Protein backbone atom coordinates (compact mmCIF):
# COMPACT_ATOMS: atom_id res chain seq x y z
CA UNK A 1 0.00 0.00 0.00
CA UNK A 2 1.32 3.40 -0.92
CA UNK A 3 2.13 5.73 1.99
CA UNK A 4 -0.44 8.27 0.85
CA UNK A 5 -3.19 5.71 0.89
CA UNK A 6 -2.10 4.56 4.30
CA UNK A 7 -2.27 8.13 5.53
CA UNK A 8 -5.74 8.42 4.08
CA UNK A 9 -6.78 5.22 5.79
CA UNK A 10 -5.48 6.44 9.13
CA UNK A 11 -7.35 9.73 8.76
CA UNK A 12 -10.50 7.87 7.89
CA UNK A 13 -10.18 5.54 10.84
CA UNK A 14 -9.58 8.40 13.25
CA UNK A 15 -12.58 10.30 11.89
CA UNK A 16 -14.71 7.20 12.10
CA UNK A 17 -13.60 6.60 15.63
CA UNK A 18 -14.65 10.12 16.57
CA UNK A 19 -18.04 9.67 15.00
CA UNK A 20 -18.57 6.38 16.80
CA UNK A 21 -17.43 7.95 20.03
CA UNK A 22 -20.20 10.48 19.65
CA UNK A 23 -22.74 7.79 18.90
CA UNK A 24 -22.26 6.44 22.44
CA UNK A 25 -24.33 9.18 23.97
CA UNK A 26 -26.96 9.32 21.27
CA UNK A 27 -30.51 8.36 21.99
CA UNK A 28 -31.57 4.88 20.85
CA UNK A 29 -32.58 4.56 17.24
CA UNK A 30 -36.27 5.31 16.76
CA UNK A 31 -36.83 6.63 20.25
CA UNK A 32 -39.81 8.96 20.36
CA UNK A 33 -38.51 11.03 23.23
CA UNK A 34 -35.29 12.30 21.79
CA UNK A 35 -34.58 16.03 22.00
CA UNK A 36 -34.85 16.14 18.23
CA UNK A 37 -38.46 14.96 18.41
CA UNK A 38 -39.60 17.02 21.35
CA UNK A 39 -38.00 20.42 20.95
CA UNK A 40 -38.71 22.18 17.68
CA UNK A 41 -40.41 19.71 15.41
CA UNK A 42 -43.64 19.17 17.38
CA UNK A 43 -44.59 22.72 16.57
CA UNK A 44 -44.37 21.95 12.88
CA UNK A 45 -46.42 18.81 13.26
CA UNK A 46 -49.11 20.48 15.29
CA UNK A 47 -49.36 23.89 13.72
CA UNK A 48 -48.46 23.51 10.08
CA UNK A 49 -52.00 22.90 8.99
CA UNK A 50 -53.28 25.90 10.89
CA UNK A 51 -50.40 28.10 9.80
CA UNK A 52 -49.94 27.11 6.20
CA UNK A 53 -52.86 24.97 5.09
CA UNK A 54 -50.56 22.20 3.96
CA UNK A 55 -51.17 18.67 5.22
CA UNK A 56 -47.65 17.64 4.28
CA UNK A 57 -45.39 18.83 7.09
CA UNK A 58 -42.34 18.59 4.93
CA UNK A 59 -43.72 20.92 2.28
CA UNK A 60 -44.98 23.27 4.96
CA UNK A 61 -41.58 23.55 6.56
CA UNK A 62 -39.80 23.60 3.24
CA UNK A 63 -41.90 26.27 1.65
CA UNK A 64 -42.81 28.34 4.61
CA UNK A 65 -41.07 28.02 7.96
CA UNK A 66 -37.70 27.48 6.38
CA UNK A 67 -38.56 28.95 3.01
CA UNK A 68 -35.45 31.06 3.19
CA UNK A 69 -33.31 27.91 3.06
CA UNK A 70 -35.23 26.75 0.05
CA UNK A 71 -34.57 30.04 -1.69
CA UNK A 72 -30.88 29.39 -1.34
CA UNK A 73 -31.30 25.78 -2.35
CA UNK A 74 -32.47 27.20 -5.65
CA UNK A 75 -29.54 29.55 -5.63
CA UNK A 76 -27.23 26.58 -5.25
CA UNK A 77 -28.66 25.03 -8.39
CA UNK A 78 -28.38 28.36 -10.15
CA UNK A 79 -24.76 28.67 -9.06
CA UNK A 80 -23.92 25.19 -10.23
CA UNK A 81 -25.61 25.86 -13.56
CA UNK A 82 -23.80 29.14 -14.10
CA UNK A 83 -20.51 27.62 -13.04
CA UNK A 84 -20.87 24.68 -15.43
CA UNK A 85 -21.90 26.99 -18.25
CA UNK A 86 -18.97 29.24 -17.61
CA UNK A 87 -16.52 26.36 -17.42
CA UNK A 88 -17.71 24.36 -20.39
CA UNK A 89 -18.58 27.21 -22.71
CA UNK A 90 -16.42 27.53 -25.79
CA UNK A 91 -14.40 30.73 -25.75
CA UNK A 92 -15.95 32.45 -28.73
CA UNK A 93 -18.21 35.40 -28.93
CA UNK A 94 -21.61 34.77 -30.32
Amino acid at each position, binding site marked *: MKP*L*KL*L*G*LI*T*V*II*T*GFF*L*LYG*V*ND*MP*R*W*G*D*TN*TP*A*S*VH*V*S*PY*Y*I*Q*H*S*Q*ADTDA*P*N*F*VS*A*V*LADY*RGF*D*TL*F*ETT*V*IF*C*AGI*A*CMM*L*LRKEEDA
Partner: protein
Amino acid sequence: MDFIVSKFNYWIYIIMMMIGFYAMIAKRNLVKKIIGMNIFQTAIILFYVSIGAKKGATIPILEAAHHAKIPPESIEVAKYINPLPHVLMLTAIVVGVSVTGVALALIILIYRRYHTVEEDEILRQLS
Protein backbone atom coordinates in the same frame (compact mmCIF):
# COMPACT_ATOMS: atom_id res chain seq x y z
CA MET B 1 -24.92 -5.74 23.74
CA ASP B 2 -27.69 -3.23 23.93
CA PHE B 3 -25.16 -0.61 22.98
CA ILE B 4 -24.48 -2.28 19.67
CA VAL B 5 -27.97 -3.38 18.81
CA SER B 6 -29.81 -0.16 19.61
CA LYS B 7 -27.39 1.93 17.65
CA PHE B 8 -26.48 -0.57 14.97
CA ASN B 9 -27.81 1.67 12.22
CA TYR B 10 -25.53 4.51 13.21
CA TRP B 11 -22.59 2.14 12.96
CA ILE B 12 -23.44 1.27 9.41
CA TYR B 13 -23.90 4.89 8.38
CA ILE B 14 -20.58 5.77 9.84
CA ILE B 15 -18.84 2.91 8.09
CA MET B 16 -20.46 4.04 4.87
CA MET B 17 -19.34 7.60 5.39
CA MET B 18 -15.84 6.41 5.96
CA ILE B 19 -15.89 4.37 2.77
CA GLY B 20 -16.81 7.50 0.85
CA PHE B 21 -14.35 9.60 2.76
CA TYR B 22 -11.57 7.14 2.06
CA ALA B 23 -12.33 7.23 -1.66
CA MET B 24 -12.26 11.01 -1.57
CA ILE B 25 -8.84 11.35 -0.07
CA ALA B 26 -7.01 8.20 -1.08
CA LYS B 27 -8.16 7.35 -4.62
CA ARG B 28 -6.02 8.79 -7.36
CA ASN B 29 -8.73 8.80 -10.01
CA LEU B 30 -10.69 12.04 -10.05
CA VAL B 31 -13.99 10.41 -10.96
CA LYS B 32 -13.54 7.95 -8.12
CA LYS B 33 -13.07 10.84 -5.76
CA ILE B 34 -16.38 12.29 -6.86
CA ILE B 35 -18.08 8.92 -6.45
CA GLY B 36 -16.64 8.81 -2.95
CA MET B 37 -17.99 12.28 -2.32
CA ASN B 38 -21.46 11.15 -3.37
CA ILE B 39 -21.33 8.19 -1.04
CA PHE B 40 -20.14 10.36 1.81
CA GLN B 41 -22.96 12.84 1.30
CA THR B 42 -25.61 10.19 0.89
CA ALA B 43 -24.48 8.55 4.11
CA ILE B 44 -24.82 11.84 5.92
CA ILE B 45 -28.32 12.18 4.53
CA LEU B 46 -29.11 8.69 5.78
CA PHE B 47 -27.83 9.71 9.16
CA TYR B 48 -30.09 12.75 9.22
CA VAL B 49 -33.12 10.79 8.09
CA SER B 50 -32.65 8.35 10.91
CA ILE B 51 -32.47 11.21 13.41
CA GLY B 52 -36.06 11.89 12.53
CA ALA B 53 -37.17 8.29 12.79
CA LYS B 54 -39.61 7.29 15.50
CA LYS B 55 -40.68 3.75 16.23
CA GLY B 56 -44.22 3.18 15.23
CA ALA B 57 -44.71 6.54 13.64
CA THR B 58 -45.98 7.22 10.17
CA ILE B 59 -44.91 9.44 7.31
CA PRO B 60 -45.09 13.16 8.02
CA ILE B 61 -48.34 13.87 6.26
CA LEU B 62 -51.34 14.80 8.29
CA GLU B 63 -53.98 12.06 8.30
CA ALA B 64 -57.20 13.91 7.99
CA ALA B 65 -60.15 14.24 5.80
CA HIS B 66 -59.79 16.66 3.00
CA HIS B 67 -59.75 20.28 4.19
CA ALA B 68 -60.84 19.27 7.64
CA LYS B 69 -59.27 21.54 10.20
CA ILE B 70 -57.77 19.72 13.14
CA PRO B 71 -57.02 21.77 16.25
CA PRO B 72 -53.26 21.76 16.93
CA GLU B 73 -53.56 20.31 20.44
CA SER B 74 -55.27 17.18 19.21
CA ILE B 75 -52.48 16.20 16.84
CA GLU B 76 -50.38 13.52 18.45
CA VAL B 77 -46.75 14.36 17.90
CA ALA B 78 -45.41 10.84 18.44
CA LYS B 79 -47.56 9.59 15.59
CA TYR B 80 -45.62 11.40 12.92
CA ILE B 81 -42.02 11.23 11.96
CA ASN B 82 -40.02 14.38 12.64
CA PRO B 83 -40.23 16.36 9.38
CA LEU B 84 -37.40 18.80 10.00
CA PRO B 85 -34.46 16.51 9.07
CA HIS B 86 -36.27 15.61 5.86
CA VAL B 87 -36.51 19.26 4.91
CA LEU B 88 -32.87 19.80 5.59
CA MET B 89 -31.95 16.77 3.55
CA LEU B 90 -33.92 17.88 0.53
CA THR B 91 -31.61 20.87 0.47
CA ALA B 92 -28.57 18.70 1.10
CA ILE B 93 -29.39 16.38 -1.80
CA VAL B 94 -29.67 19.29 -4.17
CA VAL B 95 -26.43 20.76 -2.87
CA GLY B 96 -24.72 17.40 -3.31
CA VAL B 97 -25.83 17.06 -6.91
CA SER B 98 -24.78 20.62 -7.67
CA VAL B 99 -21.31 20.02 -6.33
CA THR B 100 -21.12 16.77 -8.29
CA GLY B 101 -22.10 18.64 -11.43
CA VAL B 102 -19.46 21.31 -11.03
CA ALA B 103 -16.85 18.73 -10.15
CA LEU B 104 -17.66 16.67 -13.23
CA ALA B 105 -17.47 19.78 -15.39
CA LEU B 106 -14.04 20.36 -13.95
CA ILE B 107 -13.08 16.77 -14.72
CA ILE B 108 -14.12 17.21 -18.33
CA LEU B 109 -11.97 20.32 -18.59
CA ILE B 110 -9.08 18.61 -16.89
CA TYR B 111 -9.33 15.72 -19.35
CA ARG B 112 -9.38 18.15 -22.25
CA ARG B 113 -6.19 19.74 -21.06
CA TYR B 114 -4.21 16.84 -19.66
CA HIS B 115 -5.82 13.87 -21.44
CA THR B 116 -6.06 11.88 -18.26
CA VAL B 117 -8.10 11.80 -15.08
CA GLU B 118 -5.46 10.20 -12.89
CA GLU B 119 -4.18 12.63 -10.31
CA ASP B 120 -0.57 11.45 -10.28
CA GLU B 121 -0.28 11.72 -14.06
CA ILE B 122 -1.67 15.25 -13.98
CA LEU B 123 0.72 16.28 -11.24
CA ARG B 124 3.57 14.85 -13.26
CA GLN B 125 2.51 16.97 -16.22
CA LEU B 126 2.15 20.04 -14.06
CA SER B 127 5.56 19.88 -12.48
